[in-house]
Structure formats: C-alpha cells, structure tokens
C-alpha cells in the first residue's frame, strides 16, 4: 500500500470517459422503458457524485459529536435538512391549498421508530457507513462496504419478512404525525426552522468547547 502512495497517481480520466459513455447509453435505454426511470437514473448519479465529492457521511455526523466533539458534519446535515425543508414545505403547502394529498415522507412515529433508529445507528457505526455512505463507498471501490451492502439487503428483506409481526404488535399503536396538522402550518414551519437554528448554534458551541479542552 505504501508503494501505491509513493508512485505518482495515474490519471483515470480515460476510464471516466468510458464510464460516462456507458452511463449515457444506459440512460437512453432507460428512457425507452420509461422517461421517469431515466430521470431517476440522473438523480442517482447526481446524488452519488455530490456524496463522493463532499465526503458526506451521516454516520460520522451523528457519531463524531460525542466521540471526538467534531460537529462539522452534523451541522452540514442540519444545513441540508433546512434547505430541503424550505423547498418541501413550499411544495407541500401548494398541494394543501389545492386540496391534494400532502406529499413527503410522513410515516408512523412511535416506539418502533426509536427501536429501529437505535438498531440502525449501531449497525451504521459497526459497518462504517449508512445507507448513502455504503452505496457511495461501493462506488469508490471499498470491498468492506460491498460486503456490508449484501448484508444490508439481507437485513432489509428479513425486516420486511418480519414486518407483519411488528405491525400487529407495535406499529398498530402509532400514527403518522405531520407537524402542521397538530401545530398549524405557520407554527410548524417557523418552529422547526427555529429548532434547526438552535441545534446548529448548540452544535457550534459544543464543537468550540471540545476544542478548547
């Protein structure tokens, strides 16, 4: 491995061009199956590109504040969420005004969320990557994350297989909670925005204090 870093890195641009051609051809094929599929293909590539270029990692974002005191990734997650929330709420409010069902990821909130989130967090730290991070590192050539992906898929299928039991015994008691439904649109939007800002400020303060130590 040391020899690798000592020798000057070869340009991989020719490979990139070949890959780009393949991606475009596959995109054209997908557009014949269905236009939206080609659009989703482009979105996937864009997400992967941005994740790789910015070394974005949700696992480190929630792990590092406690482990090392570094909150730069956690703050980045807050920024991403704030940007998306502003756009989402515009689309949601427009749908609400025109009487359409409100779009978005609004799922039952309850004990199962807490349990699933804890299990997910443990897994993400053990395997060294969350859902987006695992896919991104597979693209970068990490063998470990390829193994993790295989078992990620196996675990998802096992979860889907047992879903009926959880639905009957735990999820049954939970309801989706869309904050504007209980707080009103204004209070939910500005309240959440304020909460995100407060979290950002707290994270900044936490980072500063752990550095001072």
């Amino acid at each position, binding site marked *: 491995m040391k020899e690798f870093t000592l020798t000057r890195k070869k340009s*991989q641009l020719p*490979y990139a061009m070949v890959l780009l051609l393949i991606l475009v051809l596959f995109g054209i094929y997908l557009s014949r199956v269905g236009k939206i599929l080609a659009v*989703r293909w482009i*979105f996937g590539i864009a997400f992967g590109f941005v994740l790789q270029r910015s070394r974005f990692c949700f696992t480190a974002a929630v792990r590092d504040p406690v482990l090392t005191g570094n909150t730069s990734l956690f703050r980045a997650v807050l920024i991403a969420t704030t940007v998306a929330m502003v756009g989402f709420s515009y689309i949601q409010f427009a749908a609400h005004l025109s009487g359409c069902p409100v779009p978005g990821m609004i799922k039952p909130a309850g004990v199962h969320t807490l349990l699933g989130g804890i299990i997910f967090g443990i897994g993400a730290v*053990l395997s060294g990557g969350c859902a987006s991070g695992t896919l991104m590192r597979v693209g970068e050539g990490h063998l470990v994350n390829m193994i993790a992906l295989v*078992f990620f*898929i196996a675990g998802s299928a096992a979860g889907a297989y047992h879903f009926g039991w959880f639905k009957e015994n735990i999820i049954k008691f939970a309801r989706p909670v869309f904050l504007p439904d209980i707080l009103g649109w204004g209070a939910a939007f500005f309240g959440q925005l304020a909460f995100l800002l407060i979290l950002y400020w707290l994270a900044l303060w936490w980072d500063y204090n752990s550095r001072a130590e």
Partner: protein
Amino acid sequence: MKNKELLKEELKRYADVILKEPFPYWFGAILLGILNVCLLAVSGEPWRITTHFAHWGAWVARAFGARPEFWAFYDEQDNAAALAGGFLRDGGSVQNLGIIAGALLAALLASQFRFKKIKNYKQVIGAVIGGFLMGYGARLAFGCNIGALFSGISSMSLHGWIFMAAMSAGAYLGSRLLIKFFLY
C-alpha cells in the same frame, strides 16, 4: 501565446475545484438539499434508499422459492407494485444503482478510484453484523438516514426527529461496542 497558457492554467484550476478537491461539507449539504427538493418536485416522492434494498432482497428470496408477495410489507400498494414490476421498472432501484455509478464517476474523474482491500477479519464481522442491523432497523423505523432522517425531518414529520435522536443514541452504543470488541 502567453495568454493561451494562462487561460489553460486558469481552466485547470476550475476543473480541479470541481473534480479533484473535496467540496466543503456545507456546500455538499446545500447541493443535497436542492437535489432532494428537485426530486420531490419531479417524482412526487422525496429521496429514500432502503425500501428498495428490501425489494432487492425480496427478489433474491423469490428466486429461491420464497413468496414475498404474501409478506405484510407488500400489502402496501407501492411496495407490491415495485415487487411485481422488477428492478428495471423500479425508479428507486435504478436511482440507488445511480448513486454507486455517480460515486464511481466522481472518483475516476478525480483519479481517486482505488480498489480497497480488507485490512482484517474484524472489519468483515463489522460489515456483516452492521449491514444486517441497518437493513433490519430501517424496515422497523420506516426508513434510513435518508428516508427517515433527511427526508422525514424535511417533510416536517415527527418520525424523522425521533429517528435522528435514536440513530445518534445507536451511534453512541455502536462506538462503545467498536471500542470494546473491534479495536483490539
């Protein structure tokens, strides 16, 4: 002649910023946020990843004789439709493949692609257990760090906030496990 050289150097500098040097986290964050909004506007559905992993697993299970269409998870209409349609008709599956392709493209453009081998057997154990736990936990919580945390909070849904708190707690427990069993 000299102007041409200068221009070339300037262009190379721009190319390096876009293709080689890592973006600052905040810049990547803004791009991810904008992409997620565009995805919702275009497809009517925010970004999610792991639901489609369940479909991949169900297709494999079906190839081995299982009947996933009878699992309660596939009572939901969207899931049942995706299961019946197959990989190449499922937008989310194609999108997940695109994430791998996009990261590979970015790594190659920066000449940073390297096939990274496994350092020790503990890493494999971590990947096996950790990968499985993530898949299972995400089904239980209706999403992963993307579908539940990023898209859930952005949709002003309470489950997103609970997931963020729970994932942070899980990450803390995972770090303790890592320190105790995997580092030595």
